[in-house]
């Protein structure tokens, strides 16, 4: 069964700006690589804009996992691009937790399928699991890597999908998971934070 994020919402969401999204603590930092292989700190991508951050890996075959996050991000991208007032105030980040496979080059190729020209959608990875794991832990993103009986890594991972809404003070303001993630909800929350700022 497909997650709700693939279909129309079954309810009218509360109007943007009519509700509060209390801060849930600071968004953590960590070393990252962009699609060009350039080293950055994750914090370099936070704070300037309202940011939506998702942990994914490109070979994930769970339709209600990473592909859902990317599908929703693409829908959010479309919604934000249609609203010229907010287009330059929003950033999406797809952050891979599979540095073995998701090299900067691989992520660059992956991003070309989804990212529209002129939209701020960053695709980030890390140099190694050692560099990655503290960041995952800081975000509470548990990942179980799958191994066969001989202890060989199967290249697949199990995880509870997490997507983070981060404000201009680099504070986490909402967390979405499979049952809850929907482009309309995310876009509404983005507008709620923007209304708050104005």
């Amino acid at each position: 069964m497909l997650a709700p994020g693939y279909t129309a919402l079954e309810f009218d969401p509360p109007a943007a700006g009519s509700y509060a999204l209390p801060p849930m603590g600071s968004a953590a930092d960590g070393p990252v690589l962009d699609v060009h292989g350039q080293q950055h700190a994750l914090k370099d991508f936070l704070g300037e804009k309202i940011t939506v951050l998702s942990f994914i890996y490109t070979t994930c075959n769970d339709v209600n996992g990473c592909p859902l996050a990317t599908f929703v991000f693409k829908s959010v991208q479309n919604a934000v691009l249609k609203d010229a007032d907010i287009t330059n105030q929003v950033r999406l980040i797809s952050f891979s937790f599979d540095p073995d496979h998701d090299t900067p080059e691989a992520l660059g190729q992956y991003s070309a399928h989804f990212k529209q020209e002129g939209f701020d959608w960053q695709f980030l990875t890390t140099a190694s699991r050692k560099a990655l794991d503290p960041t995952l832990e800081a975000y509470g993103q548990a990942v179980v890597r799958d191994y066969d009986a001989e202890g060989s890594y199967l290249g697949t991972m199990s995880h509870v999908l997490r997507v983070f809404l981060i404000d201009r003070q680099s504070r986490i303001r909402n967390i979405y998971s499979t049952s809850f993630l929907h482009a309309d909800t995310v876009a509404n929350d983005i507008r709620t934070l923007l209304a708050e700022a104005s």
Partner: protein
Amino acid sequence: MIQRLTNTAALLLCVIASSAVADETCMSPYMAKIVGQEDFVYIWTLGIEGVGDGQDKLVTVDVNPASETYSEVVHSTSVGGRNEAHHSGLTDDRRYLWASGLDTSKIFIFDVHSDPSKPRLHKTIGDFVTKTGGIVGPHTNYAMPGRMLLTGLSNNRDHGGRTGMAEYTNAGEYITTHWMPTDDNLQGAVKSGQFADGYGYDARALPRRNVLVTSSFTGWNNYMMNLGQMMADAEAMKRFGNTVVIWDLHARTPKKILDVPGAPLELRCAWGSQSNYCFTSTALTSKIWLIYEDDAGEWHAKAVADIGDASKIPLPVDISISADDGHLWVNTWNDGNVRLFDISDPHAPTQVFEQQIGAQINMVSQSWDGDRVYFTSSLLANWDKKEAAAGNDLQYFKLYGWDGEKLTPQFNLDFIELGLGAPHQMRFGAYALYGKSPAKENGAAATAR
């Protein structure tokens, strides 16, 4: 959706709101589920003076028939005192179990993922009352995406029933408080009947409908009072909740207050893709109530069945809905009975089974497939019975097999004889949730993590 089979459990790690779930049937729709054989049941247990160390504790029982220690207590973690241990709940990723105390308002967070057979106390929240602005008696520990929702039963101003809910991050950091709507401050909610009492108890989410449902019990003054004394106190008996509140789940704002007189307790929502309803039972009036959305999108409450003979005060407590929304287990504390209702027509439940489990009974938890039904006995320290008739169990944890017609005993642990205390809330654990296995934990097989 990831669905994997291991030697012990089949798991749903990515969950969606419209999935069938089982107590596993009663867990948050945001949570990873155990849909096969559970390995452990974690039992949040009240300490009893003179029984073992007398402290509240998290007791771990091995419930996997394939294990050498099946039916045994394999671990116990005491928390250093008595807090009126009551309810517990897992985070959405099931890495931590939150267990709260109704008297001290402390919340104990156990790490259940590092070694599922040996939960360890990870963190204690001791400032819940001040952080939340005065909520007393954290009750339901309910998983939301990346956070926990904690319902309260009372407040620090008069220790009555007016209360609220609080949100914490999974890491145990306070986020915010939501007070229940009252006549003084409806917070924009529609008062549909006589009551807007501001009381609280349980909470359940229906993400598909953007709805959060809350129920209402009583305050610290009552739940910490001796039961006989309270029932003889006419004024005290007036101070029970009479409401269920429908909230905007996303905005966390109350939308409608429904009259459900008689202390509506546990809430259990159906999970069919077109099933927009929940059940609750009323402790004082002994009825099953249906909380439902009509075709126009309006929410209503109505009594749909009697639970035993209300004049005999059976005192309904925990309820558990089956994965297919077809049946509802209903425990009645005072007579120690479990009843099963056919709820295939939610507007007209019919009782199809009844059996006494012990001298008293409180919680019921069933496996995803409904084949295994677990029971515990304790309600509240000052309400629990102190003795049982010969041959009847007082403080127990029991497993029965259910074949659709009868309950077949599997094992029975006497928590007094074992020096543990009074067992209350049960939560399931499994190695496979964390990519682990018993062999790996014992170092007997190759590991690669």
